[in-house]
């Protein structure tokens, strides 16, 4: 692995992308800003002194993505074809989740633009709310996925979302306990939201061997799994629709998904 922004003498330089193939590229970055529950309530009710907080932060994020090359020294100026910013108000964790998606047909990736968009959207949220809450914390900024280009598609590894203990393959010494696992699947909108398709979870990690405990355990691993708390979400055990109090056995396949819309 080499750092392409360093030349043979270890000096910083801008990578020549003229000979690179153009391809459709997309990157998604996420982050969050934590605040007092009262601040979040004001934000969702539109009661903050500076006006529509989310609309302003969205524009700020989009503008920032377009100007990434002015901020990051060796970044190319890109003709972005799309920048979208989404906010999710999380009252359980008292924070706002920010996600940015950037897209273009071009020769370089757009993850720096997505990261810049998320960062500036978070900074704008801070600015818009700081009159009532100075203790807000911006955090967990990272790239979730990128597609297109020579290095191929990349999605944040499930390992980063769920501790390695949950994936027995990754540990050299497999204890008898860790082999008692269930496979967890996510479908459709829920899969996209969480960014995970399949997981292996050790039953020993759960408070109790049932689906409620599995959901609880997942939501403590990563805030994205909070989407499972939505009452619309259905679950199946071994391909049979079941209720959340259903017990689990080693080897079971558990699936979570939104209401079905076939036909």
């Amino acid at each position, binding site marked *: 692995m080499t750092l392409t922004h360093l030349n043979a003498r270890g000096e910083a330089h801008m990578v020549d992308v003229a000979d690179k193939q153009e391809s459709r590229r997309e990157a998604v970055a996420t982050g969050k800003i934590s605040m007092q529950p009262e601040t979040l309530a004001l934000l969702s009710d539109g009661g903050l002194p500076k006006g529509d907080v989310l609309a302003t932060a969205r524009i700020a994020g989009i503008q920032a993505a377009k100007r990434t090359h002015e901020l990051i020294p060796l970044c190319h100026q890109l003709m972005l074809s799309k920048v979208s910013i989404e906010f999710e108000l999380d009252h359980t964790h008292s924070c706002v989740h920010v996600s940015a998606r950037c897209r273009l047909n071009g020769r370089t990736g757009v993850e720096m633009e997505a990261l810049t968009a998320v960062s500036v959207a978070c900074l704008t949220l801070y600015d818009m709310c700081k009159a009532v809450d100075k203790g807000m914390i911006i955090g967990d900024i990272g790239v979730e996925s990128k597609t297109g280009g020579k290095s191929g598609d990349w999605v944040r590894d499930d390992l980063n979302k769920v501790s390695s203990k949950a994936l027995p393959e990754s540990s050299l010494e497999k204890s008898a306990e860790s082999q008692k696992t269930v496979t967890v699947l996510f479908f459709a909108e829920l899969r996209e939201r969480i960014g995970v398709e399949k997981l292996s979870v050790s039953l020993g990690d759960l408070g109790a061997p049932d689906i409620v405990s599995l959901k609880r355990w997942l939501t403590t691993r990563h805030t994205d799994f909070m989407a499972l708390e939505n009452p619309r979400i259905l679950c199946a055990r071994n391909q049979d629709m079941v209720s959340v109090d259903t017990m689990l056995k080693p080897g079971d396949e558990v699936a979570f998904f939104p209401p*079905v819309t076939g036909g």
Partner: protein
Amino acid sequence: MVRVQQAPFDLNALYHSLSAERTDIGAVASFVGRVRDFNEQPDVEALTLEHYPGMTEAVLTRIVEQAEQRWSLANVIVVHRVGRLTPGDDIVVVLVASAHRHAAFEACEFIMDLLKTQAPFWKKEHTRQGDYWVSERHSDKEARQRWEQG
């Protein structure tokens, strides 16, 4: 017969396989669901159908078995497509054969009403304004509940 596939289906061929050399069949009812160019938003350019392989087939088989317990049926075919489809494409076909028409009509509707609310398929619509996952419809839930009362 229950099948989930990407490829288009040939309604005529399915009709033949349902009823060929069967002289006890007096009625065949069929339903074909298609992709519309408008739904929750106008200008639907395409949709992607995702499913839960294994569970989908199991649920469809169970729905057909329930229909066979409720009505006297000679044969049933359900084919549902997955993957990317464009407006005008067929999505699903249900063919029900029986001795008399009432059983065929009712069972065909019953199978579709249960499929809509129980079979693990999900639609994502692609429009000029962007992509979105289709929401479940309350009317579909009511249509299914009708059969529970009856």
